[in-house]
C-alpha cells in the first residue's frame, strides 16, 4: 500500500477533522493495531509465561511471536529484544544494569533528548558532549579526539534528533567508538518510524525504541542488546516470572530477555506493537513519502518572511523545526491549534541544545505516513493568519 492511501486506516481521522503534525511526540493508531489489542482483551486475555492452561499458552505465544516480529523488523534475534515501557525505560535499564559501576564517562551528542541525558546524570556518571558543526551535525574529528581522551567509555547517541530531524551517521560513529573499546547505545525513538534499522549492520551494542511513535500503543517499547552483553547484566527489576528459583535469602534468574521482564508485562501493548510494525512494513513508500513532505514543507516555510529554519542540512527526516523572528513559538502553536492544526512548540525535551543555540524553543512540524501536502498547505495558511495576528 502507498502512504497516500493509508489515512483511511486511522479511525482518529474519520472522527476528528484535525491536521495532526505532532508525530514526533506520538502517532495516531491504525485500526489493525486497535483490533489486535482488542482481540487480546476480548478473546484470549490471560497472563503469559506462567500456568499451564490453554489461554495462557495462547497469550504467551502471541507475546513471543510479537517479540519475533519486532526483533526481525530491526534486524535482531528474538532473544536480544527486551520489552520495556519505552525508549526512556530502555535507556534507564542500560544505565542501571550495565553502565553504572562499570563506566565512569558517557559521551553524548548535543542533540540528545532529556531521556538520554538524565539516566546517566542520575547514576552520577561524568558526561562529555561530542562537538558539532554549524549544521548541528556531529563533528567526526571532534568525536575522534573525545574518544582518544576517553577510551573505554560508554557512548549514547540519538539516531534521529527529535527536535531537528538530523540523522546521525550511526554506523560510522559506532565503528569509530568501537576502535576505542567503547560500548554504544543508539536512541532510536524517532528512527523506528522513519528509517530502516538493522542493528547488526550498524553494529550497535544497544538500541532503544518506543512503539507509540510508530503507530503502536503507548507504554511499550524495546531494548535491543547484543546477547553477550545482556547475559552479563543483572536484572533491572525483581518480580514475577523472571526467576529460576527463589528462597527468602537468594534467587537465580532466567536468561535474557525474560530476566529483564519482571512482573506481568504490557501484553496487549506488545501485541499491538507487533501489529503496528507489520502495518508499517506494508507501506511501500513510507521513507520517500517522508522526504517528499520534508522537502515540500521546507520550501514552503522558506517563503515566509523572518522564518529561521533549523533543519537545513541534507540529512534530515521526520521533523522540521523553525522559529519566526520576533514571534514567540508558543503563540504560533496556540493559534495554529485554534485552527485545528496540532503541532509542537517549545524545547522538545532537549533543553541543552536550545541553550547552545541561544533559543527558548522552536515550532516543530513532524510527519507520519498519513500526512499529505494538503496538511502542509493548511498549516502554512494558518501560519500566515497567526503571523498577521501577532505582528
Amino acid at each position: 500500500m502507498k502512504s497516500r492511501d493509508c489515512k483511511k486506516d486511522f479511525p482518529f481521522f474519520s472522527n476528528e477533522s484535525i491536521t495532526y503534525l505532532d508525530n514526533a511526540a506520538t502517532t495516531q493508531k491504525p485500526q489493525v493495531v486497535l483490533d489486535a489489542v482488542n482481540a487480546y482483551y476480548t478473546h484470549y486475555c490471560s497472563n503469559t509465561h506462567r500456568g499451564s492452561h490453554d489461554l495462557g499458552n495462547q497469550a504467551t505465544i502471541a507475546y513471543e511471536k510479537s517479540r519475533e516480529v519486532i526483533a526481525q523488523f530491526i534486524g535482531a534475534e528474538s532473544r536480544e529484544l527486551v520489552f520495556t515501557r519505552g525508549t526512556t525505560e530502555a535507556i534507564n535499564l542500560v544505565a542501571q544494569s550495565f553502565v553504572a559501576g562499570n563506566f565512569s564517562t558517557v559521551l553524548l551528542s548535543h542533540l540528545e533528548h532529556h531521556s538520554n541525558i538524565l539516566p546517566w546524570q542520575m547514576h552520577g556518571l561524568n558526561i562529555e558532549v561530542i562537538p558539532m558543526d554549524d549544521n548541528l551535525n556531529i563533528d567526526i574529528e571532534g568525536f575522534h579526539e573525545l574518544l582518544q581522551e576517553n577510551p573505554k567509555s560508554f557512548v549514547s547517541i540519538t539516531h534521529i534528533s527529535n527536535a531537528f530531524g538530523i540523522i546521525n551517521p550511526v554506523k560510522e560513529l559506532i565503528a569509530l567508538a568501537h576502535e576505542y573499546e567503547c560500548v554504544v547505545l543508539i536512541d532510536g525513538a524517532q528512527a523506528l518510524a522513519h528509517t530502516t534499522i538493522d542493528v547488526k549492520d550498524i553494529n550497535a551494542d544497544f538500541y532503544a525504541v518506543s512503539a507509540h511513535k510508530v503507530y503502536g500503543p503507548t507504554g511499550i517499547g524495546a531494548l535491543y542488546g547484543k546477547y553477550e552483553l545482556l547475559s552479563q547484566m543483572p536484572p533491572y527489576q525483581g518480580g514475577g516470572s523472571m526467576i529460576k528459583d527463589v528462597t527468602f535469602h537468594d534467587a537465580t534468574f532466567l536468561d535474557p530477555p525474560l530476566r529483564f521482564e519482571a512482573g506481568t508485562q504490557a501484553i496487549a501493548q506488545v501485541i499491538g506493537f507487533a501489529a503496528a510494525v507489520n502495518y508499517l512494513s506494508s507501506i511501500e513508500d513510507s521513507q520517500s513519502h517522508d522526504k517528499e513532505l520534508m522537502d515540500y514543507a521546507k520550501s514552503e516555510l522558506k517563503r515566509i518572511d523572518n522564518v529561521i529554519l533549523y533543519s537545513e542540512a541534507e540529512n534530515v527526516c521526520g521533523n522540521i523545526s523553525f522559529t519566526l523572528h520576533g514571534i514567540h513559538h508558543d503563540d504560533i502553536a496556540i493559534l495554529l491549534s485554534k485552527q485545528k492544526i496540532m503541532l509542537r512548540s517549545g524545547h522538545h525535551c532537549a533543553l541543552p541544545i536550545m541553550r547552545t543555540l541561544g533559543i527558548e524553543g522552536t515550532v516543530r512540524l513532524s510527519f507520519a505516513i498519513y500526512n499529505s501536502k494538503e496538511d502542509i498547505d493548511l498549516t502554512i495558511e494558518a501560519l500566515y493568519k497567526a503571523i498577521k495576528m501577532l505582528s
Partner: protein
Amino acid sequence: MSIKEDIENLAFELELFDDVMDKYEYIIEMGKSLKDLNAKYKTEIYRVQGCQSQVWLHAYVKKGQIRYEADGDALIVRGLIAMLIRIYSKRSREEILQSEISDLEVLGLSEIITAGRQNGIASMLKRIYDYAKEVHDA
C-alpha cells in the same frame, strides 16, 4: 465587584466572539496593551516556572490590598496575564482566598484551566494564591 463577578463579566466579553480566532485576537490585544513589568522584577526570583513560555510576577501590598503586576515573553500569555491581573489585583487576601481557581473555568480558556499542565499561567495562578496565603497585612 467580587472576583466571581469579575470572572463572569470577562466570560461574557469573550462569549461575544463567534469565531474563536476573533477571541484570540482580543486576547492578543490585551497582551499588547499589558504594561511592561519594570526590568528589576524580570529576574530569576520573580520568574514563574513554566514549560512553554516565561512569566514574571511581582506581588506587593498597598493600602491594605494585594497588588499583582506581571509580564510574559509570549503575546497570548501576556493577554492571559492581563486577565488574571484584572481579576485578582487590588483585592484583600480574604477575597482571593475565598475564591476558587475552578471559578475560572467559565472563561473556557484551556490555556488557563488545563489541570497539571506545566505552563506559566497555571504556575502564576498558584503564586497568586500562595502570596495571598503568606501575606499578613492585606
